[in-house]
């Protein structure tokens, strides 16, 4: 077992949608342990449960049965304030960009920092602008989402997810709405930034060209994991519980490194 504790440990996770007659199981006994600093790609046909698993790991959906330990905290039955606190330490990139239509690119990204408190405005502005420039949006800082192309919007969403330097990034088909080329650009950028910052990343994608970037590829079918390649040592069931989580302070506050790294 590594010294670093797994940022995500999923064990025996089941999930259902609907109630009564319409109740339908979407996940069956899913177990997964992620290594820190790796890129895991989640694959599988449409409806296989990828989004469900990602939103459960990302604290966006309530755990019904089984266990998800996120950054050392059990999500099953976790009270709302704990869940809110954990969400702040993640970056989530949605299938649709989900940008706030009334806010400019700069303001959208700033929302990713502001959630941590007011901080130093000058520093925050620098971090936001730096990241947007890095993603090739230096000329679009004050554009509203409506005036950006699909690829540009998704890049703003990437910047929003990464700006607070989160320990974990979840991306749900970040390229689905994009043409191949801009899709690949977005993923490559996400990968580069993640690698540089040692972020643990889970990405749902069908883009074959980036499979070689992955440390690990997990495939779901009908709510079950059917293949798991590039599986690492620590993916054995967790043996130690209650170990301090060394990754916890990382994503907390926007630091000057957010502005200068990369």
């Amino acid at each position, binding site marked *: 077992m590594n010294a670093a504790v797994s940022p995500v440990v999923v064990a025996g996770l089941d999930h259902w949608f609907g109630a009564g007659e319409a109740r339908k199981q979407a996940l069956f006994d899913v177990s997964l342990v992620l290594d820190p600093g790796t890129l895991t790609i989640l694959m599988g046909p449409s409806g296989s449960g990828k989004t469900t698993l990602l*939103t459960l790991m*990302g604290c*966006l*959906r*309530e755990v019904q049965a089984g266990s998800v330990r996120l950054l050392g905290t059990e999500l099953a039955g976790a009270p*709302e*304030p704990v869940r*809110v*606190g*954990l*969400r*702040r*330490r*993640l970056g*989530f990139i*949605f299938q*649709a960009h*989900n*940008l*706030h*239509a*009334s*806010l400019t690119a700069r*303001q959208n990204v*700033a*929302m*990713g920092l*502001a*959630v941590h408190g*007011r901080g130093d405005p000058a520093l925050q502005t620098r971090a936001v602008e730096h990241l947007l420039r890095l993603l090739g949006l230096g000329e679009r800082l004050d554009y*509203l989402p409506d005036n950006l192309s699909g690829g540009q919007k998704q890049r703003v969403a990437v910047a*929003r997810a990464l700006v607070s330097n989160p320990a974990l990034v979840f991306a749900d088909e970040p390229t689905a709405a994009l043409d191949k080329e801009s899709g690949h650009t977005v993923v490559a950028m996400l990968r580069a930034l993640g690698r540089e910052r040692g972020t643990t990343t889970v990405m749902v994608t069908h883009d074959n060209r980036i499979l070689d970037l992955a440390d690990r590829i997990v495939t779901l079918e009908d709510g079950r994991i059917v293949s798991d390649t590039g599986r690492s040592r620590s993916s054995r069931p967790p043996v130690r519980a209650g170990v301090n989580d060394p990754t916890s302070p990382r994503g907390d506050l926007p630091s000057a490194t957010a502005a200068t790294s990369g």
Partner: protein
Amino acid sequence: MAKLLGRLFGRLPIGWLQLVHNRTRMAAAIAGVAFANVLVFVQLGMLGALEGTIVATYDPLRADVVIAPGDAETLTDGSLVARSAVWRALAVPGVAAAAPLHLAKVDFTRPDGAIASLQVYGIAPEAEAFVAPALREDLARLRLRDTALLDSATRGLDPDALAAIGPERPYVFEVNGLTLSATGTISLGAGFTADGALVVSDQTFLRLYGQRVSGAPSRVLLRVEPGAVPVAVANAVAARLAGEPVVVSTLEAAMEADLAYQTTQRPVGLIFGFGAAIGVLVGIVIVYQVLSTDVADHLREYATLKAMGYAHPFFLGIVFEEALVLGILGFLPGLALATGIYAVMAGATGLPVEMTLVRASAVFLGTIAACAISGAIATRRLAGADPAELF
């Protein structure tokens, strides 16, 4: 505005940015709030006019305690009081002075041929302590037989002609077969039951109404000794007159009871009170509709922010910010429009339909509160849901 809100809320003024992002919808929302305000103002204006005209009937009078017949519900109805109540009340410790007051309505044929109804106050010219200070000088002149003070705001009479009335320029008119000269004016205004008022001496009153006698006035007004408590004196007088078919109360209490009766028991008052309640209700529904539609329209964006780790108070803050903006921007045109409508209503009816600071403030605070509560209710859906369920 954005800067101000940013400072007020200590964050990016998202609510404001959301509103100005869709200006058409913002205009519609402001129009909705303004309309709700106008609706409430018009209804409250009518109710206020009714209350104003009731209070106005007490305006010429100054008294601490009033003895009214037991069957009286308002100042202008009820049977008569035995004049002996005057002497008996004067014997009660604390009573300084007493004056009989005669009340009646009289029809008056206006120069244009229409019939106007005047509320007549008959009171002794020397009872100056029982009338408003502005009337005292004029009251003394009413010793002259068949003179009167005519309401300068009588509905349907030329206001300029009324304004010119003076001891040297009397206004001569005929009522109940008697020719009266108005040598002064009072300002009462038209009400729901009368078109104006007339003040005459008790002697002239009895000449106007042959069947009325000085032994049976409509009310007996009392003044208390300096330092005496009117309520205590009223109780003492009531005890002294126990067994008589009269009600003794402070003039203040009589007016409150009159107001309560006319606004809640009489059809006119019921209709206006009901109208005001419906107006407020419809206003709240409109405001709720505006805010909840807005929240629904932004639910996806809020869900995203929630997924990023924003907690419920943050969304309440956004909605309150919007409520504040819509409340203020909707109130201002609503107030302006309502003030204009009041002027038209007052001009057409002669009723005292006026914008008051108290009413404007109450409607403003009510608007902000309705907006904020509506927004808070509308965000409840957000509070319980997992972000993933909202996309």
